């Protein structure tokens, strides 16, 4: 880990800079081509296998979603949504999981030094040994991704298979996807590939096809090709123009200097009041009165 630590760009709750000696690290990205996904859930299985996770066997909740939601044991789930677009039934299937934001809300909210780190290649990773279980990351995330594990009270989410990527392999989900809907490579390559896929979709009549790489969070290292890029909400509530909540920004931003000034003012007031006005004694008055 010592060598790898050089590749960390940002670290939660750390006021001083992380090691930044390597400047030209390629940013990676996962591109999920929603239009090529058949919802087979092989990615869920691959994720479970590689990361040694076993979500509880759920029950049918009336839709194909299973597990019905992300959990500490399910870092990716396929979400299905039926909708009518252009007069036709459309079955929109989206692989949900961590988006690996360039400006991660979880990392901003986290109070524990080094519990969340962002590698220079863009991967946002939880370091559970430093996690204190406060769940601030859950409040910080604009995509509702991190989940607290009821067993150890620590937060978990997709690592983008940082362990595989570190040794030059693609994430398990991308490796296994039978339809080639999940691509992995440098962010630039993925953007180029997405442009081709988007052009193809437009040719097929999806005028609003586009790449989902929301700039409100500085762009993401998991991107989607969407047929309806103008309506991401159609894809099981993928946020439209997500950003770190202004409430979180205020809490982690302005409130800190404000508190420092407020608390320091109270302390300094006391000190200077005492050395100028002096103590307030009653004894002498009594003698004077009597």
């Amino acid at each position, binding site marked *: 880990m010592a060598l790898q630590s050089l590749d960390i760009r940002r670290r939660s709750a750390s006021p001083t800079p992380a090691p930044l000696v390597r400047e030209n690290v390629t940013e990676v990205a996962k591109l999920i081509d929603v239009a090529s996904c058949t919802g087979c859930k092989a990615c869920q299985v691959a994720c479970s296998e590689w990361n040694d996770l076993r979500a509880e066997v759920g029950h049918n909740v009336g839709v194909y979603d299973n597990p019905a939601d992300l959990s500490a044991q399910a870092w990716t789930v396929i979400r299905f949504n039926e909708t009518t677009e252009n007069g036709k039934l459309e079955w929109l299937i989206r692989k949900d999981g961590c988006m690996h934001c360039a400006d991660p809300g979880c990392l901003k909210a986290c109070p524990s030094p080094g519990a969340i780190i962002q590698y220079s290649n863009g991967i946002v990773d939880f370091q559970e040994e430093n996690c*204190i*279980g406060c769940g601030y990351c859950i409040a910080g995330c604009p995509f509702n991704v991190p989940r*607290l594990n009821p067993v150890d009270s620590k937060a978990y989410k997709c690592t983008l298979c940082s362990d595989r990527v570190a040794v030059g392999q693609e994430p398990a989900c991308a490796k296994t996807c039978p339809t080639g809907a999940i691509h992995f490579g440098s962010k630039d390559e993925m953007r180029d590939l997405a442009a081709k896929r988007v052009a193809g979709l437009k040719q097929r009549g999806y005028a609003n096809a586009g790449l989902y790489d929301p700039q409100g969070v500085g762009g993401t290292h998991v991107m989607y090709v969407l047929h309806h890029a103008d309506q991401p909400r159609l894809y099981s509530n993928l946020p439209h123009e997500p950003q770190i909540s202004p409430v979180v920004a205020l809490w982690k931003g302005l*409130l800190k200097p404000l508190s420092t000034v407020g*608390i320091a003012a*109270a302390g300094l007031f006391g000190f200077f009041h005492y050395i100028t006005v002096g*103590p307030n004694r009653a004894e002498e008055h009594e003698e004077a009165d009597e």
Partner: protein
Amino acid sequence: MSRLITRYNAAERINHWVVAICFILLAISGLALFYPAFFWLTGIFGTPQLARILHPFVGVLMVAGFARQFLRYWRHNLVNHEDIRWMLAVRQALVGDEVGDTGKYNGGQKGMFWVMTLCLLVMLMTGVIMWRPWFAGYFPIPLVRVALLCHAWAALILIASIIVHIYAAFWVKGTISAMVEGKVSPAWARKHHPAWYREVSEKADQS
């Protein structure tokens, strides 16, 4: 006449110091989770995880203790026109000149009482909303965010207020022993709380 006057009985003093100790533990662990540079202060509870786990329980204990104090003192803290006079002449009070015919508490103390009450109420409600793993999951994430902000905001006001509270006790000589030994001198009572002094003197004369 140098007979000492009882201001706080033993139960009241125990009550006060239980709340005070809770406050110290909460302020230190809370600041540790608020300021990254003070994260090491989580050591007050042993480890960071323990601080996260114990902080809310100590908080509930503090609120319970304060609730008992609230029931003891709320009647004495209703603001009257003498207190308004005090608040308007706060500059004079700050240089040690007494203002108005003060009862058990002066305008500043009453203001402090209500600020503490309000802050603790906000912190109790927001604290429950953000309390993991027990309760936060039942609330929508946007509400949890507001709770986190308001909890920190109320904590800041409370900490600054308590600093003033502690300083005032240190500044007005004879006040700390009122809460440690329970007694004050007649001169202290006559100077700082004349109306209260007359009240307790009358009672003493009757008995």
